[in-house]
Protein backbone atom coordinates (compact mmCIF):
# COMPACT_ATOMS: atom_id res chain seq x y z
CA UNK A 1 0.00 0.00 0.00
CA UNK A 2 2.89 2.34 0.76
CA UNK A 3 4.42 1.54 -2.64
CA UNK A 4 1.11 2.41 -4.26
CA UNK A 5 0.69 5.60 -2.24
CA UNK A 6 4.16 6.75 -3.21
CA UNK A 7 3.56 5.92 -6.87
CA UNK A 8 6.03 3.03 -7.22
CA UNK A 9 3.23 0.76 -8.40
CA UNK A 10 -0.22 1.43 -9.76
CA UNK A 11 -1.86 -1.94 -9.33
CA UNK A 12 -5.19 -2.37 -7.58
CA UNK A 13 -5.05 -3.93 -4.12
CA UNK A 14 -8.07 -5.85 -2.88
CA UNK A 15 -8.66 -7.24 0.58
CA UNK A 16 -10.93 -10.30 0.62
CA UNK A 17 -12.93 -9.59 3.74
CA UNK A 18 -13.92 -13.10 4.81
CA UNK A 19 -16.25 -12.92 7.84
CA UNK A 20 -15.20 -9.32 8.49
CA UNK A 21 -11.55 -10.32 9.00
CA UNK A 22 -10.20 -6.99 7.71
CA UNK A 23 -12.66 -4.68 9.56
CA UNK A 24 -10.30 -3.97 12.51
CA UNK A 25 -7.58 -3.15 10.00
CA UNK A 26 -9.85 -0.72 8.17
CA UNK A 27 -10.78 0.93 11.49
CA UNK A 28 -7.08 1.42 12.18
CA UNK A 29 -6.74 2.87 8.70
CA UNK A 30 -9.59 5.32 9.39
CA UNK A 31 -7.92 6.34 12.62
CA UNK A 32 -4.67 7.06 10.77
CA UNK A 33 -6.66 9.39 8.48
CA UNK A 34 -8.68 10.89 11.39
CA UNK A 35 -5.50 11.67 13.27
CA UNK A 36 -4.11 13.40 10.18
CA UNK A 37 -1.26 11.01 9.50
CA UNK A 38 -2.61 10.35 5.99
CA UNK A 39 -4.68 12.22 3.40
CA UNK A 40 -8.37 11.44 3.26
CA UNK A 41 -8.04 9.85 -0.18
CA UNK A 42 -5.54 7.37 1.26
CA UNK A 43 -8.48 5.03 1.88
CA UNK A 44 -8.76 4.59 -1.89
CA UNK A 45 -5.37 2.83 -1.87
CA UNK A 46 -7.11 -0.41 -1.10
CA UNK A 47 -10.50 -1.87 -1.90
CA UNK A 48 -12.36 -4.18 0.44
CA UNK A 49 -14.45 -6.91 -1.17
CA UNK A 50 -16.98 -8.84 0.86
CA UNK A 51 -16.61 -11.95 -1.31
CA UNK A 52 -14.11 -13.70 -3.57
CA UNK A 53 -16.40 -13.00 -6.56
CA UNK A 54 -16.38 -9.34 -5.64
CA UNK A 55 -12.59 -9.27 -5.40
CA UNK A 56 -12.20 -10.94 -8.82
CA UNK A 57 -14.66 -8.37 -10.19
CA UNK A 58 -12.49 -5.51 -8.92
CA UNK A 59 -9.42 -7.09 -10.53
CA UNK A 60 -11.26 -7.56 -13.85
CA UNK A 61 -11.99 -3.84 -14.18
CA UNK A 62 -8.55 -2.88 -12.95
CA UNK A 63 -9.66 -1.36 -9.67
CA UNK A 64 -9.97 2.32 -8.89
CA UNK A 65 -7.21 4.45 -10.33
CA UNK A 66 -5.42 6.72 -7.92
CA UNK A 67 -5.09 9.51 -10.45
CA UNK A 68 -8.40 9.89 -12.32
Amino acid sequence: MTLRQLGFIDKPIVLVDVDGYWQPFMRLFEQIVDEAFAEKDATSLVEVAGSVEGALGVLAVGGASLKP
Partner: protein
Amino acid sequence: MGVSAPQSRINVAIAVWEWGAYYSDLRLTWAPYRRPSPETAPVHSKAAGLYMICTISKHAAEAKGFGDALMLDYEGYLAETTGANLFLVIDGELHTPTPDRFLNGLTRRTAIDLARGRGVNVVERRIPPEDLKIAQEIFVTGTAAELTPVRAVDDLNFQVGPITRQLGRRLPRHYPRPHRPGRPRRRVTALSVCVFCGARYGARESYAAAAIELGRGLASRGWRLVYGGGDVGLMGTVADATLSSGGEVLGIIPARLLEREVGKREVDQFEVTETMAERKERMIAASTPSSSCPAASAPSTSCSR
Protein backbone atom coordinates in the same frame (compact mmCIF):
# COMPACT_ATOMS: atom_id res chain seq x y z
CA MET B 1 33.67 -0.37 -50.14
CA GLY B 2 31.84 1.59 -47.46
CA VAL B 3 28.55 3.01 -48.64
CA SER B 4 27.26 6.06 -46.78
CA ALA B 5 23.68 5.17 -45.98
CA PRO B 6 22.17 7.57 -43.40
CA GLN B 7 20.41 9.66 -46.07
CA SER B 8 18.78 6.59 -47.67
CA ARG B 9 15.05 6.03 -47.45
CA ILE B 10 14.24 2.95 -45.34
CA ASN B 11 11.69 0.47 -46.66
CA VAL B 12 10.41 -2.27 -44.42
CA ALA B 13 8.62 -5.40 -45.63
CA ILE B 14 7.22 -8.11 -43.37
CA ALA B 15 6.41 -11.53 -44.83
CA VAL B 16 4.40 -14.07 -42.84
CA TRP B 17 4.09 -17.75 -43.63
CA GLU B 18 3.46 -21.09 -41.97
CA TRP B 19 6.67 -22.66 -40.78
CA GLY B 20 6.94 -26.25 -39.61
CA ALA B 21 9.76 -27.64 -37.46
CA TYR B 22 13.05 -25.88 -38.24
CA TYR B 23 15.07 -28.98 -37.43
CA SER B 24 14.15 -32.65 -37.36
CA ASP B 25 16.44 -35.27 -35.85
CA LEU B 26 19.25 -32.73 -35.58
CA ARG B 27 22.77 -33.95 -36.29
CA LEU B 28 25.60 -31.43 -36.49
CA THR B 29 28.98 -31.28 -38.17
CA TRP B 30 31.75 -28.70 -37.86
CA ALA B 31 31.44 -25.46 -39.80
CA PRO B 32 34.24 -24.38 -42.17
CA TYR B 33 34.11 -20.84 -40.71
CA ARG B 34 34.53 -19.48 -37.20
CA ARG B 35 32.49 -16.72 -35.60
CA PRO B 36 34.38 -13.42 -35.72
CA SER B 37 35.66 -11.41 -32.78
CA PRO B 38 33.42 -8.57 -31.52
CA GLU B 39 36.23 -6.31 -32.78
CA THR B 40 35.74 -7.62 -36.32
CA ALA B 41 31.96 -7.42 -36.75
CA PRO B 42 28.88 -6.34 -34.77
CA VAL B 43 28.33 -9.87 -33.47
CA HIS B 44 25.24 -9.08 -31.37
CA SER B 45 23.25 -8.05 -34.42
CA LYS B 46 21.15 -10.23 -36.67
CA ALA B 47 21.84 -8.11 -39.76
CA ALA B 48 25.58 -7.77 -39.83
CA GLY B 49 26.72 -9.85 -42.74
CA LEU B 50 27.18 -12.75 -40.31
CA TYR B 51 24.57 -14.64 -42.29
CA MET B 52 27.10 -15.13 -45.07
CA ILE B 53 29.46 -17.47 -43.18
CA CYS B 54 26.47 -19.10 -41.50
CA THR B 55 24.68 -19.81 -44.77
CA ILE B 56 27.82 -21.20 -46.41
CA SER B 57 28.45 -23.36 -43.32
CA LYS B 58 24.86 -24.63 -43.27
CA HIS B 59 24.95 -25.49 -46.97
CA ALA B 60 28.23 -27.38 -46.44
CA ALA B 61 26.70 -29.33 -43.53
CA GLU B 62 23.56 -30.17 -45.50
CA ALA B 63 25.66 -31.34 -48.44
CA LYS B 64 27.28 -33.85 -46.07
CA GLY B 65 23.87 -35.07 -44.83
CA PHE B 66 23.80 -33.13 -41.53
CA GLY B 67 21.07 -30.81 -40.26
CA ASP B 68 23.29 -27.87 -39.42
CA ALA B 69 26.87 -26.78 -38.70
CA LEU B 70 28.35 -26.21 -35.26
CA MET B 71 30.55 -23.13 -35.21
CA LEU B 72 33.57 -22.31 -33.08
CA ASP B 73 34.39 -18.75 -32.08
CA TYR B 74 37.56 -16.96 -33.23
CA GLU B 75 39.45 -18.39 -30.23
CA GLY B 76 38.42 -21.98 -30.91
CA TYR B 77 35.74 -22.31 -28.22
CA LEU B 78 32.19 -23.50 -28.92
CA ALA B 79 29.95 -20.69 -30.21
CA GLU B 80 26.59 -21.87 -31.58
CA THR B 81 25.08 -23.43 -34.68
CA THR B 82 24.46 -21.22 -37.70
CA GLY B 83 21.21 -19.98 -36.17
CA ALA B 84 20.62 -21.40 -32.70
CA ASN B 85 22.29 -21.14 -29.28
CA LEU B 86 24.00 -24.18 -27.78
CA PHE B 87 23.50 -25.91 -24.42
CA LEU B 88 25.38 -28.86 -22.90
CA VAL B 89 24.13 -30.89 -19.93
CA ILE B 90 27.15 -31.96 -17.88
CA ASP B 91 26.48 -33.90 -14.65
CA GLY B 92 23.06 -32.31 -14.09
CA GLU B 93 24.29 -28.76 -14.77
CA LEU B 94 23.50 -26.69 -17.84
CA HIS B 95 26.60 -25.28 -19.58
CA THR B 96 26.30 -22.71 -22.35
CA PRO B 97 28.87 -20.47 -24.08
CA THR B 98 29.11 -16.88 -22.79
CA PRO B 99 27.16 -14.78 -25.32
CA ASP B 100 29.73 -12.02 -25.83
CA ARG B 101 30.65 -13.10 -29.36
CA PHE B 102 27.29 -14.14 -30.80
CA LEU B 103 23.66 -13.11 -30.37
CA ASN B 104 22.19 -13.80 -26.92
CA GLY B 105 18.90 -15.23 -28.19
CA LEU B 106 15.55 -14.56 -26.53
CA THR B 107 14.80 -18.29 -26.45
CA ARG B 108 18.25 -18.88 -24.92
CA ARG B 109 17.41 -16.48 -22.09
CA THR B 110 13.99 -18.05 -21.59
CA ALA B 111 15.56 -21.53 -21.41
CA ILE B 112 18.07 -20.30 -18.80
CA ASP B 113 15.28 -18.71 -16.70
CA LEU B 114 13.25 -21.91 -16.94
CA ALA B 115 16.20 -24.08 -15.94
CA ARG B 116 17.10 -21.87 -12.97
CA GLY B 117 13.43 -21.83 -11.97
CA ARG B 118 13.56 -25.63 -11.85
CA GLY B 119 16.64 -25.53 -9.62
CA VAL B 120 19.10 -26.46 -12.40
CA ASN B 121 22.47 -24.71 -12.08
CA VAL B 122 23.34 -22.78 -15.26
CA VAL B 123 26.99 -22.06 -16.08
CA GLU B 124 27.96 -19.54 -18.77
CA ARG B 125 31.61 -19.97 -19.73
CA ARG B 126 34.14 -20.52 -22.52
CA ILE B 127 33.56 -24.14 -23.53
CA PRO B 128 36.33 -25.99 -25.40
CA PRO B 129 35.04 -28.43 -28.06
CA GLU B 130 36.53 -31.37 -26.06
CA ASP B 131 33.74 -30.83 -23.50
CA LEU B 132 31.27 -32.32 -25.99
CA LYS B 133 32.76 -35.68 -24.98
CA ILE B 134 31.77 -35.24 -21.32
CA ALA B 135 28.26 -33.92 -22.08
CA GLN B 136 25.30 -36.23 -21.46
CA GLU B 137 22.77 -34.13 -23.39
CA ILE B 138 23.02 -31.36 -25.97
CA PHE B 139 20.30 -29.10 -27.29
CA VAL B 140 19.99 -25.84 -29.19
CA THR B 141 17.53 -22.96 -28.77
CA GLY B 142 16.26 -20.31 -31.14
CA THR B 143 13.13 -18.52 -32.23
CA ALA B 144 12.85 -20.88 -35.21
CA ALA B 145 14.51 -23.90 -33.60
CA GLU B 146 12.61 -23.45 -30.29
CA LEU B 147 14.33 -26.16 -28.22
CA THR B 148 15.74 -28.96 -30.35
CA PRO B 149 17.76 -31.90 -28.99
CA VAL B 150 21.05 -32.54 -30.80
CA ARG B 151 21.37 -36.24 -31.64
CA ALA B 152 24.97 -36.17 -32.86
CA VAL B 153 28.01 -34.02 -33.57
CA ASP B 154 29.85 -35.86 -36.34
CA ASP B 155 30.31 -39.41 -34.95
CA LEU B 156 29.63 -38.41 -31.32
CA ASN B 157 26.07 -39.49 -30.43
CA PHE B 158 23.77 -38.07 -27.73
CA GLN B 159 20.57 -39.25 -26.05
CA VAL B 160 17.59 -36.98 -25.49
CA GLY B 161 17.92 -36.75 -21.71
CA PRO B 162 15.64 -35.64 -18.87
CA ILE B 163 16.71 -31.97 -18.72
CA THR B 164 16.26 -31.50 -22.47
CA ARG B 165 12.86 -33.18 -22.31
CA GLN B 166 11.71 -31.19 -19.29
CA LEU B 167 12.75 -27.79 -20.68
CA GLY B 168 11.42 -28.67 -24.13
CA ARG B 169 8.01 -29.44 -22.64
CA ARG B 170 7.86 -26.21 -20.66
CA LEU B 171 9.23 -23.76 -23.20
CA PRO B 172 6.13 -23.59 -25.47
CA ARG B 173 4.04 -22.29 -22.54
CA HIS B 174 6.11 -19.13 -22.69
CA TYR B 175 5.17 -18.33 -26.28
CA PRO B 176 2.16 -16.20 -27.11
CA ARG B 177 -0.69 -18.45 -28.27
CA PRO B 178 -1.38 -18.20 -32.01
CA HIS B 179 -4.64 -16.54 -33.02
CA ARG B 180 -6.85 -18.97 -34.92
CA PRO B 181 -8.29 -17.28 -38.01
CA GLY B 182 -12.08 -17.22 -38.11
CA ARG B 183 -12.50 -17.27 -34.35
CA PRO B 184 -13.03 -13.98 -32.57
CA ARG B 185 -10.14 -13.14 -30.32
CA ARG B 186 -11.12 -13.02 -26.66
CA ARG B 187 -10.97 -9.46 -25.44
CA VAL B 188 -10.40 -10.44 -21.81
CA THR B 189 -6.90 -9.56 -20.68
CA ALA B 190 -5.07 -12.42 -19.01
CA LEU B 191 -3.96 -11.07 -15.66
CA SER B 192 -1.28 -12.23 -13.28
CA VAL B 193 -2.78 -11.86 -9.83
CA CYS B 194 -0.47 -11.71 -6.83
CA VAL B 195 -2.09 -13.30 -3.79
CA PHE B 196 -0.77 -12.75 -0.28
CA CYS B 197 -2.26 -15.10 2.26
CA GLY B 198 -1.51 -17.02 5.41
CA ALA B 199 1.05 -19.77 5.79
CA ARG B 200 -1.50 -21.10 8.33
CA TYR B 201 -5.16 -22.00 7.94
CA GLY B 202 -6.50 -19.57 10.53
CA ALA B 203 -9.24 -20.25 13.06
CA ARG B 204 -12.19 -20.55 10.68
CA GLU B 205 -12.98 -22.94 7.87
CA SER B 206 -14.36 -20.03 5.85
CA TYR B 207 -10.79 -18.82 5.21
CA ALA B 208 -9.75 -21.99 3.39
CA ALA B 209 -13.08 -22.02 1.56
CA ALA B 210 -12.35 -18.50 0.29
CA ALA B 211 -8.82 -19.53 -0.75
CA ILE B 212 -10.25 -22.45 -2.77
CA GLU B 213 -12.86 -20.21 -4.38
CA LEU B 214 -10.15 -17.68 -5.25
CA GLY B 215 -7.89 -20.34 -6.84
CA ARG B 216 -10.76 -21.74 -8.90
CA GLY B 217 -11.87 -18.23 -9.87
CA LEU B 218 -8.39 -17.34 -11.16
CA ALA B 219 -8.11 -20.59 -13.15
CA SER B 220 -11.56 -20.24 -14.71
CA ARG B 221 -10.67 -16.74 -15.93
CA GLY B 222 -7.36 -17.91 -17.37
CA TRP B 223 -5.47 -15.68 -14.93
CA ARG B 224 -2.14 -16.71 -13.45
CA LEU B 225 -1.60 -17.00 -9.72
CA VAL B 226 1.61 -15.38 -8.44
CA TYR B 227 2.23 -16.32 -4.84
CA GLY B 228 4.80 -17.03 -2.15
CA GLY B 229 5.67 -20.52 -3.37
CA GLY B 230 4.83 -22.35 -0.16
CA ASP B 231 2.86 -25.55 0.35
CA VAL B 232 1.54 -24.73 3.81
CA GLY B 233 -1.63 -23.06 5.09
CA LEU B 234 -3.78 -20.96 2.78
CA MET B 235 -0.80 -20.43 0.44
CA GLY B 236 -0.82 -24.12 -0.38
CA THR B 237 -4.62 -24.15 -0.55
CA VAL B 238 -4.90 -21.36 -3.10
CA ALA B 239 -2.11 -22.87 -5.23
CA ASP B 240 -3.67 -26.34 -5.13
CA ALA B 241 -7.08 -24.98 -6.07
CA THR B 242 -5.62 -23.02 -9.01
CA LEU B 243 -3.60 -26.01 -10.27
CA SER B 244 -6.38 -28.57 -9.88
CA SER B 245 -8.69 -26.29 -11.88
CA GLY B 246 -6.17 -26.14 -14.71
CA GLY B 247 -4.73 -22.72 -13.86
CA GLU B 248 -1.18 -21.45 -14.16
CA VAL B 249 0.88 -20.82 -11.03
CA LEU B 250 4.13 -18.95 -10.39
CA GLY B 251 5.64 -19.55 -6.93
CA ILE B 252 8.41 -17.26 -5.64
CA ILE B 253 10.16 -18.20 -2.43
CA PRO B 254 13.35 -17.15 -0.62
CA ALA B 255 15.87 -19.98 -0.20
CA ARG B 256 15.70 -19.75 3.60
CA LEU B 257 11.93 -20.39 3.58
CA LEU B 258 12.12 -23.45 1.31
CA GLU B 259 11.99 -25.67 4.38
CA ARG B 260 9.69 -23.63 6.60
CA GLU B 261 7.07 -22.93 3.93
CA VAL B 262 7.66 -26.26 2.16
CA GLY B 263 8.54 -25.04 -1.34
CA LYS B 264 5.85 -26.27 -3.69
CA ARG B 265 7.80 -27.42 -6.72
CA GLU B 266 5.03 -28.96 -8.78
CA VAL B 267 3.77 -25.53 -9.84
CA ASP B 268 4.30 -24.38 -13.44
CA GLN B 269 6.99 -21.88 -12.58
CA PHE B 270 9.07 -21.77 -9.44
CA GLU B 271 11.64 -19.15 -8.51
CA VAL B 272 14.00 -19.15 -5.55
CA THR B 273 15.22 -15.75 -4.34
CA GLU B 274 17.95 -14.80 -1.88
CA THR B 275 15.92 -12.45 0.29
CA MET B 276 12.35 -11.56 1.28
CA ALA B 277 12.78 -8.14 -0.35
CA GLU B 278 13.82 -9.78 -3.60
CA ARG B 279 10.74 -12.00 -3.46
CA LYS B 280 8.52 -8.96 -3.10
CA GLU B 281 10.21 -7.25 -6.04
CA ARG B 282 9.84 -10.35 -8.21
CA MET B 283 6.18 -10.68 -7.21
CA ILE B 284 5.45 -7.09 -8.17
CA ALA B 285 7.34 -7.46 -11.45
CA ALA B 286 5.67 -10.79 -12.29
CA SER B 287 2.18 -9.40 -11.77
CA THR B 288 0.61 -7.87 -14.87
CA PRO B 289 2.77 -4.81 -15.59
CA SER B 290 0.15 -2.16 -16.19
CA SER B 291 -2.36 -0.08 -14.34
CA SER B 292 -4.82 -2.95 -14.64
CA CYS B 293 -2.38 -5.12 -12.81
CA PRO B 294 -3.81 -6.42 -9.62
CA ALA B 295 -2.60 -7.57 -6.30
CA ALA B 296 -5.20 -9.33 -4.25
CA SER B 297 -5.01 -10.15 -0.63
CA ALA B 298 -6.79 -13.10 0.91
CA PRO B 299 -7.69 -13.41 4.59
CA SER B 300 -4.35 -12.76 6.22
CA THR B 301 -1.28 -11.15 4.77
CA SER B 302 2.08 -12.80 4.55
CA CYS B 303 3.36 -10.03 6.83
CA SER B 304 1.11 -11.17 9.67
CA ARG B 305 2.92 -14.43 10.25
